């Protein structure tokens, strides 16, 4: 990779050992993908739940944080994805003191590195959305696909080590979605059905993600009616990224780089048709039981609007199985002020913040709480939790609330 003078100084250790290690890591990745140079980035978003980090990852972070040199600090705004717990509700999740201790150590290390503990995967709704052509280094696939597609910003999937490295060096290798040519469509999708529910948007994203199939695929999608809301596109993108490892899509006439089809698509691209039956089939394939042990709204964290809708559905209800609604630390105080939290809790639910269900030792939670059959309106969550030993089921928010009341998930 070509290095400028500043990068050469970082590599030589003149900016401190932490930045030096960070740049070395970035060069390994950049050279792997054939990056010619680095591109400056303005923000980094860091996924680092302790289930993923493990003891080894936390020790690695503590090693960086122990450096007696203020040059260990990040040099651009660097924020965090959800943590592995909500300390106030750890007992509810059956989490152990060892898990919480590891979490505290990780947080302490991040703070010493200058990382801002925002603990959110909806930073584009709550902290600061990136702007068109802004180069950023974002983790959480849902954040990346939203930022690339809806905001027109430029980011690859930056896992925790690389996002932290970008925070420490203020740059990232220029490859992938930082390059205009990678952002052009590789396949066309014609949608014959525009969902109205969040689970429907998630299921549609899942179908398209499966068709597209890998990180380097960029679907351009035609046929969406109306102008989807941020929460709908949040579930759509997060699910597409989860099912297909997709980092970017275009909606013709809606997203900023595709005001018309030929802005992003060359003639002759492979074309696919997606029908309502495809979306229904994905959803019904997860409906493997009628009984429900737990209802979870998470992945991505809920917006204030979603919590408002949930509070409305909880009115006058009494839950017989646990219902967890998980949001960001930025949204939670507003939900408290608006009375949403109280209304959800009055029905027997719980509102948690700063974590995400699948990033919080989901396997151990299942074993501790006896939760296997899980209902959610998040397609992303059902895609992930199978590997954790759950039988996840996808349904509307309304059906999930009904399931929390009577313990059964109605078939639709």
């Amino acid at each position, binding site marked *: 990779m070509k290095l400028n003078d500043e990068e050469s100084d970082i590599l030589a250790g003149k900016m401190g050992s932490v930045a030096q290690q960070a740049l070395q*890591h970035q060069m*390994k*990745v950049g050279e*792997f*993908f*054939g990056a010619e140079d680095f591109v400056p980035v303005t923000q980094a978003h860091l*996924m*680092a*739940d302790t*289930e*993923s*980090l*493990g*003891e*080894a*990852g936390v020790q*690695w972070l503590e090693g960086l944080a122990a450096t007696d040199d203020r040059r260990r600090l990040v040099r651009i705004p660097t924020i965090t994805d959800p943590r592995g717990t909500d300390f106030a509700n750890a007992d509810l999740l059956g989490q152990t003191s060892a898990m919480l201790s590891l979490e505290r150590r990780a947080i302490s290390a991040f703070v010493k590195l200058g990382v801002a503990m925002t603990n959110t995967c909806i930073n584009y709704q709550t902290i600061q959305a990136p702007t068109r052509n802004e180069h950023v280094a974002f*983790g*959480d*696939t849902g954040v990346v696909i939203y930022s690339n597609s809806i905001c027109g910003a430029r980011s*690859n*999937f*930056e*896992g*925790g*080590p*690389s996002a932290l490295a970008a925070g420490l060096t203020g740059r990232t290798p220029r490859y*992938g979605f930082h390059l205009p040519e990678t952002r052009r469509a590789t396949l066309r999708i014609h949608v014959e059905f525009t969902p109205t529910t969040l689970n429907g948007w998630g299921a549609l994203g899942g179908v398209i993600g499966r068709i597209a*199939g*890998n*990180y*380097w695929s960029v679907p351009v999608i035609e046929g969406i009616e109306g102008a989807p809301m941020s929460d709908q596109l949040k579930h759509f993108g997060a699910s597409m*990224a*989860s099912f*297909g*490892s997709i*980092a970017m899509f275009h909606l013709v006439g809606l997203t900023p780089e595709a005001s018309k089809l030929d802005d992003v698509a060359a003639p002759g691209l492979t074309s696919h048709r997606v029908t309502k039956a495809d979306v229904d089939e994905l959803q019904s394939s997860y409906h493997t039981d009628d009984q429900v042990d737990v209802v979870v709204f998470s992945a991505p964290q809920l917006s204030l609007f979603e919590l408002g809708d949930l509070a409305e559905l909880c009115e006058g209800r009494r839950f017989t199985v646990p219902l967890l609604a998980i949001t960001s630390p930025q949204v939670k105080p507003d939900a408290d002020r608006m009375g949403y939290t109280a209304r959800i809790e009055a029905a027997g639910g719980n509102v948690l913040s700063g974590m995400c269900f*699948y*990033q919080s030792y989901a*396997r151990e939670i299942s074993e501790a709480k006896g939760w296997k059959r899980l209902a959610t309106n998040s397609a992303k969550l059902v*895609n*992930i939790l*199978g*590997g*954790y*030993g759950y039988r996840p089921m996808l349904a509307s928010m309304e059906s999930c609330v009904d399931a929390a009341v009577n313990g059964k998930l109605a078939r639709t």
Partner: protein
Amino acid sequence: MKAKVFRARHSMGRIVRGIALVAHDGFSARYDLDRINGVFSRPAHKLAGQSYVGKILVLDTAKGGVATAWMLHDMKSRGIVPLALVFNSVNPILAQGAALGDVSMLAGFDEDITAAIPNGAEVEVNPQMGVLTVVA
């Protein structure tokens, strides 16, 4: 008999030799693995129930989220990590994870590498030369 050699466009890590565990399926450490017991745990995965520890995984593509970037490092520290990763295509997360976890990796072949390598074959991963060789 001349050894079969496959050239990769992307490579990282050290030379290793081991037994190939092959499937035309995707890979995510979070989605697919029981990282406590060292086996594929997603019921729908073609390698469900099989141990990945010390194997050279030959798979189609990277799936899912960003957690693998940390998880390979943690798995390595606990001795329950694949010996190497050989994929038709990878996303940045796998490359970032392999870089931090010091796991050898090859990706990008002219043919479907999951069809070319027999399951259980002994193979050598040579990132310095960017080649995968079927030894036996």
